[in-house]
């Protein structure tokens, strides 16, 4: 039964192949339905696999499809490793992907390249599943690059706008840094273990020299930082919002960006075998990222950019969990985040769609009556991400905070502050979009600090106006409307998930199903931090979290509804400009960095290319000389053969002398 696991990635692959060749002919909307059906089929198979896996010994199953690169010692198979970790991931990836595919049929309606969009989307799902299911680092890396490539394609899907194209490029460059780390880690792993297979490498990790283990773990972490948009490589993710909103929901919130967290969880024995400071590094980066991104989220004016920075921040929580030894907590947050963030993005998409491609929150307001379903589901996502019980985000974030406290009170404090800010910026977004006065046709206020946004060349503006501008020529009169059922149905399903999914792992009694389910993964259980807290302490921590989240929502209510607190308290220019980090990078790249790269480029041009061209030129020169021998006369050819023969025979005479 479990042998059929190959069907899970194969179905989206089939969808991709069919759409590549026949997409144009199938057209809209059938191509969308085909893609959706494939991914949904994959989800159904995943569920069946999950049921079978319950009976499998150790809840683990490995399948080697075929030998891919048999090169002496270097053996790589295309193989799958199905264990509770990959099972959990493929379940939510295929499930959420199905919903987002469905939503996209509505969202992408009328787009010229409708079939192409679904082609990429299916390819993405296939790559993501290979990433998760691969039983060795190389297959994972293939998936890793595959999702990356799909991400670039989809970010710049509307490539006719410069900003979109350059956002794709930015994502590409930032990810290269991470991929470099992954590759180095892969080479080192092969040198150290002679294998890339998880089931071979990971059990042997404890015996590894601590320095080597540290090196591999840190290099893999570099890869994870790139893919999961952590400091210092987080800059690409906000710009990635240039892609269509379903892409943001699927790739840049729910699935691909969590690949780094997955990788770290997968190789937990390697982290355990490393120096202690590696865990501090991971937790530190996570904590820093979650705080910085949350502050930036406070001041953004673009509805999707708020969510983008929120994603960066939530990923920071996951890395904080990994660094604190809470692997199950990280996976748990990954799952809940996938639900509520996908919900929020799709909700935002619905708003953008209803507002005729308006993304600036300052031109929204009072939408709750006009878009009741979007509003209702959005509120559930909002409460979930803000961490209010009993919604899903509360349970997972609280568990991370518990692990953080176990690691260090400082980390706990940072996490708690992040939670407060999360509640504030999400409250701000909901109040700006759904409450207050309608500002649909207002000009963008000139005096606000946010105006800098528009005249900022470096800051890639996020707007999707281009793709549907022809459909809505009359932009002056905006009449917000609720979206079609294709878009609201996924919202409702996701809202149910976002509300309830937290109950798979409640920290009391035997209710921590997910944690116990994940115990069979590698050495996850052994390598997890063990919490010394009693139920009473945990209850106390829960109350603290709840109070903090409620405080955040109250502050937002006081600021944006009541007006008691000044908005400028939160909407600071420093935050809007993302701590000037982007500009710093730009300035460095334009100044001293540029000089450095010029120098490297010069070296490459003159020395490296010189050598290569020299080889070519030298060979040409030699070729001209040798060409003279090739004069077409049989007699000179025979002479050449004779000379060769004489040399060969003469050599044999020398052999005789040697003896």
């Amino acid at each position, binding site marked *: 039964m479990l042998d059929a696991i190959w069907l899970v990635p194969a179905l989206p692959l089939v969808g991709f192949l069919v759409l590549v060749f026949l997409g144009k002919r199938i057209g809209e909307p059938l191509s969308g339905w085909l893609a959706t059906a494939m991914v949904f089929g994959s989800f159904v198979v995943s569920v069946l696999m999950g049921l079978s896996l319950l009976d499998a010994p150790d809840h683990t199953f490995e399948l080697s499809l075929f030998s891919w690169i048999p090169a*002496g010692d270097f053996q790589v198979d295309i193989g799958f490793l199905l264990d509770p970790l990959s099972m959990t991931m493929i379940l939510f990836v295929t499930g959420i992907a199905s919903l987002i595919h469905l939503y996209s049929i509505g969202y992408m309606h009328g787009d010229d390249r409708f079939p192409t969009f679904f082609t990429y989307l299916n390819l993405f799902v296939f790559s993501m599943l290979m990433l998760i299911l691969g039983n060795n680092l190389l297959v994972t890396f293939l998936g890793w690059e595959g999702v990356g490539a799909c991400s670039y394609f989809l970010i710049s899907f509307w490539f006719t706008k410069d900003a979109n194209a350059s956002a794709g490029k930015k994502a590409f460059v930032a990810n290269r840094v991470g991929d470099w780390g992954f590759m180095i880690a892969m080479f080192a792993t092969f040198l150290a273990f002679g294998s890339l297979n998880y089931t071979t490498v990971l059990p042997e990790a404890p015996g590894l020299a601590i320095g080597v283990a540290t090196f591999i773990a840190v290099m893999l972490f570099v890869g994870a930082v790139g893919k999961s948009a952590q400091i210092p490589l987080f800059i690409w993710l906000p710009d990635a919002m240039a892609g269509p909103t379903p892409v943001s929901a699927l790739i840049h919130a729910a699935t691909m960006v969590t690949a780094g967290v997955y990788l770290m969880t997968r190789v937990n024995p390697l982290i355990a075998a490393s120096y202690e400071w590696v865990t501090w590094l991971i937790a530190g980066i996570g904590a820093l990222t979650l705080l910085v991104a949350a502050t930036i989220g406070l001041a953004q004016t673009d509805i999707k950019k708020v969510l983008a920075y929120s994603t960066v921040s939530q990923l920071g929580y996951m890395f904080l969990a990994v660094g604190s030894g809470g692997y199950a907590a990280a996976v748990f947050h990954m799952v809940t985040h996938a639900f509520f963030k996908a919900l929020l993005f799709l909700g935002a998409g619905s708003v953008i769609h209803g507002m005729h491609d308006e993304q600036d929150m300052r031109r929204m307001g009072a939408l709750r009556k006009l878009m009741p379903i979007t509003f209702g589901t959005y509120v559930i996502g909002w409460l979930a991400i803000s961490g209010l019980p009993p919604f899903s985000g509360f349970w997972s974030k609280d568990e991370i905070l518990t692990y953080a406290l176990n690691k260090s009170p400082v980390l706990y404090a940072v996490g708690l502050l992040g939670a407060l800010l999360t509640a504030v910026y999400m409250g701000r977004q909901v109040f700006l979009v759904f409450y207050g006065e309608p500002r649909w046709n207002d000009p963008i206020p000139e005096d606000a600090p946010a105006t800098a946004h528009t005249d900022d060349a470096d800051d890639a503006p996020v707007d999707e106006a281009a793709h549907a501008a022809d459909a809505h020529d009359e932009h002056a009169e905006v009449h917000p409307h609720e979206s079609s059922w294709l878009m609201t149905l996924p919202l409702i399903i996701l809202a149910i998930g976002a509300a309830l999914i937290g109950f798979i792992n409640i920290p009391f009694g035997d209710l921590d199903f997910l944690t116990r389910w994940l115990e069979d993964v590698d050495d996850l259980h052994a390598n997890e931090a063990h919490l010394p807290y009693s139920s009473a302490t945990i209850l106390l921590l829960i109350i603290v979290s709840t109070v903090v989240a409620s405080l955040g929502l109250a502050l937002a209510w006081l600021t944006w509804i009541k007006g008691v607190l000044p908005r400028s308290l939160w909407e600071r220019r420093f935050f809007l400009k993302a701590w000037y980090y982007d500009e710093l990078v730009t300035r460095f790249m334009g100044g001293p960095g540029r000089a450095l790269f010029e120098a490297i480029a010069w070296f490459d041009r003159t020395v490296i290319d010189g050598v290569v061209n020299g080889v070519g030129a030298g060979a040409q020169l030699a070729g*001209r000389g040798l060409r003279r021998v090739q004069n077409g006369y049989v007699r000179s050819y025979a002479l050449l053969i004779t000379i060769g023969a004489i040399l060969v025979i003469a050599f044999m005479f020398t052999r005789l002398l040697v003896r």
Partner: protein
Amino acid sequence: MSAGILATMASVAQTGIEPISGPIGIEPISAPVDGAVPTPEITWAALLPLIILGLGGLLLLTLSSLLKRKAPRALYPIWTIATAVLAVASVVPVWAKVQGFNSILWWDFRDLWWQPATTAPGPFSTLGGAYGVDGFSLFVTVLICCAVILTTLLISGYLQREELDGPEPYALLLLAATGGVVMAGANDLIVLFLGLETISIAVYVLAASHLRRAQSQEAGLKYFILGGFSSAFFLYGIAMVYGATGTTNLVLIKSSLAESIPRHDLLLLVGFAMLLVGFGFKVAAVPFHSWSPDVYDGAPSPVVAFMASAVKVAGFAALVRVFVAGFGQYAADWQPLIYALAVLSLVVGSSLAIVQTNVKRTLAYSSISHAGFILIAVEAASETGTAAVLFYAAAYTFMVAGSFGVATLVGRAGDGRHSLDDYKGLGRTNPVLAGTLTIFLLAQAGVPFTVGFVAKFYAVIAAVQAGSAALGVVAMLSAVIAAFLYLRIIVAMYMAEGDDGGSDAPADPADHIHVPRPAAAALAICVLVTIGFGLFPGWLTDMAADSTVVLVEQGSTDASTALPGGQTLIVDDEGNLVPAGDGAVAPTEASDPSADPATGDGAVEAPQVQDPAAAEGTASVERP
């Protein structure tokens, strides 16, 4: 077959035959009692591919001359392809026998009347030990048949276009293939020479077969004269080796060399050298390469595809069989020569290729460079090296057949448009054709995810494992140089403007190249193989690794390379071919294939009942 006998046979095969007393080779030939001529034992089933190919060629010639009216055009190519396919099919049971399988997938060989059941599973030899049947010879046989099929597909359209229709080219292809198969399995230098001459003479004629092109005639003549020249070297080498060892049988030569190291035998060493000259000429290794650019340039393009694939493959197969398997004891003496030939071929081949302006000449030099690559795997003189040779040969067969296939089409009527200028703008006028050629060129350059990369990779690995890291470096550097020449053609196709002006101009219908269906099929096969085995080389590498070359004397099998007992090959859960665990029936020991009157040609055979006792005392190999 009891394990005891198997073990005995294995040990016999490993230790070779008993030392022959007295001066080697000068035993008096005992006069036949009763006046009966001693007839060597023949395992007809193992010769079936050979017989099918040879008979197919001869029948094609005879039957076509008997036809009153002109035969339908498609008859000859279909006949040729059918013959080659049949030959491949006849290899399968022999392969199973050699590898020790009773059945492959659903095909059970135990009940076949022509199942070669005389011996235990494992490589064996037949025709009095003159023809070896092992994984290696069978692999090469299949490869040559593939080359025949591809060439037939290419040449059928070509002959029609050039108005040269007739059965002769097809018959010659089949006869050449017969020669190649003989070379692949020859365990005797004389037999090897027979095969060499068969393939050579057939190809001389093929090279000259374009009646209206002077270059074609010239190419045939040049090839013939120089080929005769090198054959003389080869024959002289055989004579010298015979003089030194007293035999032309490779098994006996091997055992003779094994017992007499070190021997100060100039005769032997010069014999090696002469043989190497002959082989060097056949595989077009520098400095014995000079004929190949002229011949490749002049000969009809599909014939060049055959020359570059089948003829080279056969040459390399014989080289490996004679030098690696036969003269392995003296590797220290001939390895430096192969080393030098490899370096020269790599460097000269790729350097001269980039100064050419004619695409066929360019490909000829690139073919020399490829020969250098295969030579570095030969130089390794190891099992990895042999597997690498086979893999490279297989990969190269398809890459080069594809490349020259496109050259055939681009050459257009008259087969004359082969200059780089003729390829300019091909990407615009014939995008599919240009894309196909691009794939073959990139594969030849060794770009990853093509079969060419894997082939180069294994060759270099084999060299490095054998301790010749420097050779690997030279190979890779020359691959860099060679990449330039392939890119040059690609650049010409895509980036340079066509003769007729701007890129915006609509494609001139006259520029559109007609691609006949068979040629399209051939190119499609080549693309599939090039990409398919580039992405998933596992199956082919396993096959190549299983195809070991083993020298076994008549009446014995080398059981060490076979699986114990008769086994059934099945598809396991993971989709691999594995021996089945269930107790498959061991092959019957004393089956008597000669009981069937249909065995072949009504030849009188000696009783073929294998006596286990005789298998143990295999010292006496029948010699005339």
